[in-house]
């Protein structure tokens, strides 16, 4: 029987990760069962109480995977408290009596090709360096194209004419992407779908409301953890922009940090850890063309707590409405909906007045 390798969720990125693992290893690859309330309950039960909420989701994912028969778990790391996730989670799971092997993809905060190759080589002794690099590059493009399409979707989904047309087409696209075996077919596939997405019927007024979403990475990328913030906003017919996605975190961030420091020099002298500086920079950018900003973070997210006073000052200077959401494991989203509705009214009246 094949061993089962499994990993936690982050939005739809389980698809490229699965793609990568399936090509590089001989194991059966099975992502964690979809995040549900039960996942969070499990994660909460065995996590330290004060840890940030992504830890609880990840741990819940791992427990559900292990219960489904997984015996190899994969975790990344780096940045903020996320750096310690892997070690602490491994310890908690072992204390619970599970038996498994644990792979940490990123150690010492940086991903190095050679180290990563060695990790995979241990899993699959037949793996050649050429195949590893080739698959890795295809996966990166997979992620890049996914994110590109998501940018188009976020601009348009709030105005779709046929209900769920965007989501359904995206599901189809993921399937086709998954079946591509080399970069050329993947790229052709991407352009084909880009055309299709742009052709989907929308009913978009010229001066629609535009909102930018900034904040911590997990709560902005995993819809479950933000109570489906983006789809709630889409229901209100709002065009969305979000900077944080996986391609941003994997390479764009590194390339733009110096630029961001220059642009934010009135407010920040140094980087703020994790995405703190990035969010200050984004606030400055968004203030130019957007009607409002939504900032999301897990309760107690230290880099963002440090960035918030600066962001507030920027928003005040640039006169743009901003609203902050702090997520933890509350089960009711009524309070969040009330604040969102009020925010919508606020930006709408402001726009009408202009």
């Amino acid at each position, binding site marked *: 029987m094949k061993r089962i390798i499994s990993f936690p969720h982050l939005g739809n990125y389980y698809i490229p990760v699965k793609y990568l693992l399936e090509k590089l290893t001989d194991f059966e690859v099975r992502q964690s*069962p*979809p995040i*549900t*309330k*039960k*996942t969070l309950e499990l994660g909460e039960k065995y996590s330290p109480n004060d840890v940030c909420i992504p830890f609880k989701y990840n741990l819940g994912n791992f427990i559900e995977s292990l219960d489904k028969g997984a015996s190899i778990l994969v975790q990344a790391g780096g940045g903020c408290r996320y750096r310690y996730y892997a070690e602490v989670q491994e310890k908690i799971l072992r204390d619970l009596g599970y038996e498994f092997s644990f792979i940490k993809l990123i150690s010492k905060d940086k991903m190095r090709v050679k180290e990563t190759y060695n990790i995979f080589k241990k899993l699959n002794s037949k793996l050649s360096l050429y195949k590893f690099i080739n698959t890795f590059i295809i996966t990166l493009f997979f992620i890049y194209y996914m994110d590109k399409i998501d940018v188009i979707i976020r601009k348009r989904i709030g105005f779709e004419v046929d209900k769920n047309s965007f989501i359904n087409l995206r599901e189809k696209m993921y399937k086709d992407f998954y079946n591509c075996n080399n970069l050329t077919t993947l790229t052709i596939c991407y352009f084909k779908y880009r055309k299709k997405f742009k052709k989907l019927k929308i009913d978009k007024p010229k001066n629609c409301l535009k909102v930018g979403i900034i904040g911590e990475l997990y709560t902005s990328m995993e819809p479950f953890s933000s109570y*489906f913030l983006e789809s709630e906003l889409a229901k209100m017919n709002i065009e969305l922009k979000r900077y944080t996605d996986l391609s941003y975190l994997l390479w764009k961030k590194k390339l733009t940090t110096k630029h961001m420091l220059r642009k934010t020099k009135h407010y920040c002298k140094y980087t703020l850890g994790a995405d703190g500086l990035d969010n200050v920079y984004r606030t400055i950018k968004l203030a130019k063309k957007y009607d409002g900003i939504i900032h999301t973070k897990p309760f107690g997210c230290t880099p963002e707590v440090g960035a918030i*006073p600066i962001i*507030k000052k920027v928003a*005040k200077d640039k006169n743009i*409405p901003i609203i902050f959401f*702090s997520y933890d494991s*509350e089960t009711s989203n*009524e*309070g969040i909906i*009330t*604040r969102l*509705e*009020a925010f919508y*009214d*606020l930006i709408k*009246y*402001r726009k009408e*007045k202009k």
Partner: protein
Amino acid sequence: MKKAYLGIDIGSISTKGVIIDSDNNILLSKYIWTEGNPIKAVKEIIEYFKNNISDDIKIVSVGTTGSARRLIGSILNASIIKNEITAHAIGTLSIYPDIKTIIEIGGQDSKIILIDNGIVTDYAMNSLCAAGTGAFLSSQAKRLGIDVNNFGSIALTSNNPTPIAARCTVFAESDLVHKAQMGYNKNDIIAGLCKSVALNYLNNVAKGKKIAEPIIFQGGVSKNIGVVKSFEDILNTKIITDKNGHLMGALGVAILSKDKPEIEFDFNINNYKYSTNSKFCGKCPNNCEVIFINKDDEIIDHWGNRCPRGEKITNKN
């Protein structure tokens, strides 16, 4: 036949209802405790209106706001269901068109609304914690063995308010117990509590917001003259309180409902039995709790379902 508009604000602690005419004058109003049963409270209000309304008035639209707005909105077949922040701003502006800052402290939440030239420019609501709200004051009044209605007048008799931690309700409470056991005067402690509510509000909800004059103070806690005085002392300015301050939400949503198409309003909601029941979907581990609103035996609304899987159970019923 004169046209009139009904607005209802169902908060966690109290339920407010108003009927206004087309010039936004309040014709009738009613203020009662919700007592954890919004349906009963609304029935009581509608009954009161039914008995007191003059015959030449016809209700042509209904608006609901407050934390139970959706539930009551579907029972009354409301023309508009609006969040309380917008409703409060609209209601207040109809009476005080120049107002710049609205301070609102209710039973469970507190908010600040900043207005410039008649539009809301910024707002903030307390984060998910009831620190420094009406619920805190009434529980502390009970602990000190006094009626919450006398709280303000007792506070005003003190010349030397006892400092009480304002950061968090739990700290404030243990501080209060400690000070009481140390033998501080009761009226000083009460004045200190009023001050801590004002400080807590300014430090948490209104943090970083520019509080411009004129300022109006609303919500149940604004009836407490001790808190009003604390705000005036700290901000060093005059604060407006309105005798109808508690009705602003209801008034605002009644005004908002005026733009909506006219409906036939039925005063006889007491003849029907309204009930809610919940069902767990059970189609996936998410196990969404779907809530149904029934009028006699017929389902008039439901919510809580998030995906197509759950539509099966909502359709079946």
